[in-house]
Each structure stands twice: as C-alpha cells, then as structure tokens.
C-alpha cells in the first residue's frame, strides 16, 4: 500500500491550469520543471482542470501507478476544493490527510496578474512550502461519536415551542425549559399579530396544546439551566426545577431565550400611564381602548439607533403600524400619528399593512433625531422636517416604540453554554450566511429573538429551521469530526497543570488522573483545532494534527530557502 515508512516519501505534485485562470498569468512549464527538483517529489503533472473528472482520475492514477504517498495539488482555494481532493486521495487508497493544497490561484495568479515573472517565482515558493509540509504530514483517522437523540430547548416562547414541536414530531425526545410559570413567552403579552391580525392568544394556545399533548416533550416551567457539560451528541445539563436539580443527558441544545422589550425610563416622559410602550399598548388594546382616547401619538426609535443601542430593532415599525390600525378600528374617529425616522416595513404583507394604515387615516410625520419630539402634558411638539416647521399634536396617549433588547441573563446563559454574544448582547450565530441558525460550537443552535429582534413569521421560520438543523446529527445517530484537532503528542511532558484547560474556548480539554498522574485529555469531538493550547503549553506537550510545530516550521524554512 502507498502508506510507506518515513524513509520513502513519494510526493506527487499536481499543478492545475484552471483553464486560463492560472495558466494565463504564470509560467506553468517553469512551475512543473521546478517542482521536479524539490525534495521527495517523484511525480509532477499538469492538468487543465485538476478538479474535473479527468483531473481527479489523473490524481488517482498517479497515487496508484506512481506509488505516491503524499499528494500536493497546486490550484485554487482549499475552502472550496480541499474536500474534493481529499476524497480523491481516499478513493485511491491514500489517507486523505496525506494531502496538501497550495493556492496558486487566489493567492497568486489572480492577485499578481500583471507580474508573470514575480508571480511565477511566488508560485514556486508556495509549491516548495507545500511540498515541505506535505513530507511531514501524517495519516489521520476521522473521529466518530454517538449522538443522544434528545434535545434540550431553552425558552418556552414561540421559537422554543415551535422548535420543540417540530423535533417531537420527528420522533425525538425534547426537554423544554421555561423560566416563567407558563409557556408562551412574549406571545402572552401581545394582543393581535400583524399583518394577519390573528389573536396572539389563539396562536399561543394552539402551540401550548401541541406541546402539552405530545408525549415526547417534557416541560419544566419555573426552571433554569444552570450548567452544561459535554459536547455535541453527549451534553449533560443541570436543570434547576421546582422539585430540585435534574441532570439530563442530551444530544443537542436549542437556544430560544428570546428578547426583552426595552423600558424607556426617563425618555419622553415615560410614566406607564399617559406615556406608555407598545408592549403596554398591546394590553390596552386587548382590554379595549378607553373611548375617551381621541389623540394618539406614537414615537419610533425610542432608545434605539442611538449611541448606546446603535441597532435598528426592525420589528417596532410593524408593531406601531399594526397598533395604529387596531386603534383606528376600535376608535374610528381617533387621530393617530406616527413620528418616525425611517419606516422599516419590509415584505409584501407589511407594505400592504402600511398602505392600509394610511387609508385608515394614520398620519406619518418624519422627525430628525437631532431635533427629537418633545412630550408635554397634553401634546407632543415635533419639528416636521418636510414642512420645515414645528407642529403641536394634542395627545391623550403617547406610545413609545422601544427596541427588543437581549434578556438580562443572556450573559449568564452565554457563559453556561460557552457561546458568544454580540456587542448588543444578542447571541451570535456561527456564520451570518453559512450557519445562521447554528452556533460556532457544534450541537448548539439558536432561533428567534435571542439572535436578533424577529417578528412572528421569522420566529416560526427560525424555530422550524433550527429544529431541522438540530435533527441532522440526531437522525444520523453519530457525528464525524475532522481530525484536525489538538493531540497530546508528548504525554510524559504533560504536567497536568490545566493551563490549557482554562483557555480552551470549546471546553474540549480536561484533566484526567492516569497511571502516569494528572494528564490533559482532549475530547476529540469537541475540539476545533484552533491551536491555542498548543501555542500556550510550556511543556510543548500538545500539538495540532496537520499543523504541528514541525510542519509549520518546515513550511517557513522552505520559504526562507532562496534557491530560485
């Protein structure tokens, strides 16, 4: 088999033309001639497209016929093509981690298009560096670990309830933890939901019934998650319930802790009586507005889009428009004005609702944040920036649209789960586009306003989406993790001091008592291979697979050899 011992390293270098993307700017013949001269290189081939079926077959043929035990492909970016080339190596019987990729397109031909000579010289450097590292690569085995088919959902609002039901319907057990006495979250405090004007209580009751009736869902109300250990597939959570602390094994965790309406203490004369928030308005509308209320003024962006909270909470405009319509419906001859900075009414139905409100006589007045409206006992004075003059609007009720903010305990939850929050205190997803419902830590997902203020429809979509994401590892029953992780390379050197354990962002290291004394243990499925531990260990006991000190040094040393 090609995996020979160290004395006999046979590296194959495949240089991709990428059509003309590389070949159009670099001297390909010079590159392949140069690659031939590098240590341990026994085979060099140029391909028009290494990633095409023909190119892949050439790589496989090279491994089989030339008895290659390391493969270097000099082509494009590993972000898109590393998995493909690795699997080609594997198909040819070579361990996929004996593959190294050199990026001579994105890091060379595309960025040095007008310097053929210097670009070619750089490509030679990059290939030499890749070959030097490849010579030291070692085979790695993928890591597999079982996944417990039970989910923990934190937060019993709309997002959490939606996700719980979706998971339970797929046959997974769900443990739903809610800190309040009842399920429902924010829905419990809302009147009607825009743009469809559904009763919030109807939606809430429907969701709660589904939860209560589903045998797979266990609900803990007035409970909190106080500790979480473990990693994807094998988490253990401590849940502080009314009847003591329960320890529960779970495979995945969904965060659905929602948001909290900002209370505008000290702003615009807020008193909860004549000057109230939209959330308080929901309650008034639900009880039926006092028919004496003839003049309502709503002020947008109260406590948001300022220095302290620079973000747009983006759902408050919809809420204001909806509540303005509902006010008009209850008291048709009331005057309702909305003082706004910008109207955030995305989506077809919201646009329609916006138009409806105007048809019903809701007035929109733009204000400049530099000259904010002034609330007085029976009127609001506002500088109308389009008319260029100050207006006085009589008021019986002033409604302030305040943003959703992160819950007060988001910081604690973030520490318990070791997941990040953004500068506004909301939970931060793994990637804006690629992993919008996942945390960077595997096995933990998020949905609803815990991430960012979301309206009903978005909350439901995210709840379903997060449930879907969370069910992937559970339906597979196991997770396969890339072995580019930390390893205790020198067990004798490790003193079990725990320095690395404290720094590991993933909780992937722990101290274990072994026959040789206290030693660090890497929980391989939890490790992401960031390398902080290896770069910190004063005993140099830890290293990172495929990024060892020796491999990185070989790469740097190869760069510093000037032999061209």
């Amino acid at each position, binding site marked *: 088999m090609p995996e020979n011992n160290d004395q006999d390293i046979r590296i194959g270098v495949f240089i991709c033309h990428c059509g003309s993307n590389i070949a159009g700017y670099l001297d390909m013949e010079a590159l392949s001639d140069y690659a031939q001269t590098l240590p341990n290189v026994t085979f060099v081939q140029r391909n028009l497209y290494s990633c095409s079926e023909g190119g892949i077959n050439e790589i496989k043929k090279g491994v089989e016929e030339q008895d290659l035990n390391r493969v270097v492909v000099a082509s494009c*970016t*590993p972000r898109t093509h590393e998995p493909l080339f690795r699997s080609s190596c594997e198909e040819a019987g070579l361990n996929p981690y004996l593959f190294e990729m050199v*990026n001579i*397109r*994105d*890091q*060379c031909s*595309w*960025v*040095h*298009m*007008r*310097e053929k000579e*210097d*670009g070619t*010289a*750089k490509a030679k*450097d*990059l290939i030499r*560096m890749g070959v030097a590292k490849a010579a030291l690569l070692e085979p790695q085995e993928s890591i597999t670990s079982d996944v417990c088919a039970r989910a923990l959902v934190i937060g019993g609002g709309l997002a959490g309830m939606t996700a719980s039901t979706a998971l339970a319907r797929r046959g997974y057990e769900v443990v739903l933890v809610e800190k309040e006495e009842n399920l429902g979250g924010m829905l419990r405090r809302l009147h009607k939901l825009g743009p469809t004007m559904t009763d919030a209580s109807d939606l809430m009751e429907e969701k709660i019934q589904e939860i209560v009736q589903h045998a797979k869902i266990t609900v803990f109300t007035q409970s909190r998650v106080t500790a979480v250990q473990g990693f994807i597939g094998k988490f253990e959570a401590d849940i502080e319930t009314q009847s003591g602390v329960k320890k529960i094994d779970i495979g995945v965790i969904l965060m659905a802790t929602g948001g909290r309406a900002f209370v505008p203490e000290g702003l615009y004369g807020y008193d909860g009586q004549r000057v109230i928030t939209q959330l308080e308005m929901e309650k008034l509308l639900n009880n039926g507005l006092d028919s004496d209320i003839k003049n309502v003024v709503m002020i947008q962006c109260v406590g948001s889009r300022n220095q302290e909270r620079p973000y747009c909470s983006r759902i408050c405009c919809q809420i204001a428009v909806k509540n303005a319509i509902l006010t008009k419906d209850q008291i048709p001859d009331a005057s309702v004005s909305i003082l706004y900075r910008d109207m955030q009414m995305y989506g077809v139905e919201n646009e329609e609702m916006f138009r409806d409100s105007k048809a019903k006589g809701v007035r929109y007045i733009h204000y400049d944040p530099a000259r904010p409206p002034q609330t007085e006992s029976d009127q609001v004075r506002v500088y109308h920036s389009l008319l260029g003059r100050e207006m006085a609007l009589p008021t019986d009720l002033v409604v302030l649209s305040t943003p959703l903010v992160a819950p007060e305990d988001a910081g604690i939850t973030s520490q318990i789960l*070791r997941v*990040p929050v*953004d*500068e506004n205190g909301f939970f*931060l997803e*793994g*990637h804006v586009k690629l992993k919008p419902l996942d945390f*960077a*830590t595997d096995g933990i997902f998020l949905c609803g306003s815990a991430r960012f203020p979301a309206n009903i429809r978005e909350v439901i979509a995210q709840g379903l989406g997060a449930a879907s994401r969370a069910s992937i590892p559970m339906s597979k029953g196991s997770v396969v993790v890339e072995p*580019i992780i930390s390893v205790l390379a020198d067990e004798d050197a490790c003193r079990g*001091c725990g*320095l*690395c354990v*404290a*720094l590991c*962002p*993933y909780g992937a290291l722990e101290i274990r008592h072994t026959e040789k004394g206290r030693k660090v243990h890497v929980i391989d499925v939890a490790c*992401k*291979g*960031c*390398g*902080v531990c*290896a*770069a*910190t*260990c*004063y*005993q*140099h006991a830890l290293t*990172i697979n495929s*990024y060892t*000190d020796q491999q*990185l*040094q070989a*790469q*740097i*040393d190869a*760069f*510093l050899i000037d032999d061209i």
Partner: protein
Amino acid sequence: MAGVSRLQYTPEIKTVRIMCTGRIDPAMVARAFQKGLDGLMVVGCYFGDCHYISGNVQAKAKIDMTRKLFKYIGVNEERLAFRQCSSGEASVFVKLVTEFDEKIRDLGPLGGDGDRVKAPEIFGKLKAAEAVLAGEKIRWVMGKRTPFLETGNMYGEIFTEHEFNRAIDMIIVEEIEVQEILAKLKEGARSVKDLAGDLAIPSERIFRYITALKRKGMVALDNVTDRSPIFQLVPQEV
C-alpha cells in the same frame, strides 16, 4: 476574497495557512526571524467575530508580548504585526499587506538600518528570544493572562492590564538575560565578573541569576581561579 475580486497586491507576501491565529506560537515566530524572515504579519478575525471564539484574543496577547521582547532585544517590533480583517474584506486585506510590505521595505533586511541591533549579533539575540519564548516562565504567565485579568489568581486578586504588562516587562528582561548567560557559558566556563563584562549586565544581577541557575542544577562550579569562582553549564537531558 482578494483573489476572487482580482485585487492586486505585492508578490512579496507569502502565506502560511493556520486554522486560527490562536495557533501562533511566539517561539515559532522568533525562530522564523532567526532563520532570516524580515517581517511577519498575523491576520486574524475581528474580536467578537472569531470563528474559533477567542483564538484571536490569545494571539493578539502573544504577539503584543513578542513585540515587547523584540523591542527589548533590539529587533524593530514593527517587523511583527497583528492585524484584523474579515474573510470578506478583500480590500482591507490588500491594504494591510500593502502597508506592511512598504513598512518592511523601509526597514530593510533584518539587522540592517531598521534595527537597533545589527546582524549578525541580532541573530544571537533572536536565538535567546526563541529560548525565552519556548521557555516555561513566559509561556506560563501568558497562559495565565486571561484568568489573571478576568477571574483572578488563586487568591482571587484580579490584575489590571497595566499590572500584567509590567510583570511581563520584568520577565522579559530577566529571561533574556538568563538565556544570554546560558549562551555565553555554552561557549566556555566563565566567572561572574567575565559574564558581567561580556554581557554588560551588573555583576550583582549576574550573581543572582547564577545562584538561581545553580539551584536548578543548570550551572555548576567548575573551579576557582584567582579567588574567582568559575561556572560552567551542566549538560541537560533532552
């Protein structure tokens, strides 16, 4: 993304891929300079946006410390930079590498006009730096940095960044001096007075280091010449 956007930059820049800047080991950095590198720029994610949660915070702290050490030994610390940009910010990346390239061009080759200590002496200094950065003391203290600043030491005392940096400054001086003594003794046995003369370090300090090294079994008395004790290295097991 610079490639995808076809933004052009200098071919002088070569990249070494690591999964996270958290992997940056200061000892490896010093070694690379000692082998002839003229400039190293570590580019990581923005804080709070780290794909690996906090690797960039650790990397920044390590690079800051290494820059202090470089400055102390006479290597222009501008040769080592920690910069941040997101993977989508092609133009920022190009700006960073272009500025860095210009900076290094201004400084010229390592140990030339750009550095306080010149070649070849600078390479000896970097060798001492590598030993310091690979050594137990500074790595332990750097490893404890986050706990010290956030949760405190075993007595619950939380340090300010300023206090921590002052401690690091002191450790750098001591550790470099110890490494220089060891390097000198490697050339042959010497007295405290000889070492003080060779290294331009006050003899009281040399005496203190020698006493400590003796206690650790790294240095031993060789003989007494002219009533001066002569010390030699004790070979260490690797």
